[in-house]
């Protein structure tokens, strides 16, 4: 038997998927996509809120001497960096949770 003949044998011996295979898979993909979009929106919204309110809270904490040491870095800068870090962390965690969540 030649190589081409063996190849032909294999090409004629393909296991076919069931009729609903692609539709079932596409439903799972759409679910995953929607979950990702939903979580992304929530995280962006949360980060924006953090960005707006954290500087105010930080200023209040400083004004009331609740934080007992001097900080030379701008509170705004700290809050911006903090918000970005919160965004990245939450994004990672929620995407992971969405991926683990059953359909």
């Amino acid at each position: 038997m030649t190589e081409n003949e063996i190849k032909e044998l294999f090409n004629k011996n393909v296991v076919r998927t069931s009729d609903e295979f692609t539709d079932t898979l596409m439903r799972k993909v759409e679910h995953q996509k929607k979950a990702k979009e939903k979580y992304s929106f929530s995280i962006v919204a949360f980060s924006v809120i953090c960005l707006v309110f954290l500087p105010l809270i930080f200023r209040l904490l400083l004004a009331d001497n609740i934080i007992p040491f001097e900080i030379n870095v701008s509170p705004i800068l700290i809050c911006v960096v903090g918000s970005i870090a919160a965004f990245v962390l939450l994004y990672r965690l929620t995407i992971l949770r969405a991926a683990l969540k059953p359909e």
Partner: protein
Amino acid sequence: MVSGADNDVILIKRIKQGDTQAFRLIVEKYKDVSLTLAYSILRDREDAEDVLQDAFLRLYKSIDKFRFDSRFSTWLYRIVVNTTLNAKEKKKNNLNPGENLEIVCEDKGGYELLIDDERTYFITKALMQVKTEEALLLRLYYLCDLSIREISAVTDLTETNIKVTLHRGRKSMLEALEKITGRDLKSLL
């Protein structure tokens, strides 16, 4: 005219941009060959189909990691083979003590009912008698049309090892076919 590989590149770029219809086209193109690969390892059609769903989902999630430095099919088959081997390992660990793996891998008859072609039946039977690793490599080589180097990328086996296994597998499969059919193999073509 756009070749198959070029067409894949276009589709992958569309998937990366969030086009799920492009993903559907990729699934339609590769699902049967991928299922055949998964079936080579698990030897159970339903299990193979479940595992293939997981493999395609993994592919969709990690599509951004595909950098076009290899053929898309090679990357896909690697994901399919790895996902299937992991599933097989899990299944092996879930077996009750004393349960024989061979029984799990046995041809169950349900698959036979789906086969309406005598030739396909004989080839499937012959491949069931060949070692799992040999059947997988034979299918990667002849069905998926991968080179020895690409099979090495999919399976992590050395090129020498693949050549030896392919030679052994080819011999075993043809012997099994002759035994099953008891006639000239050319009549199967």
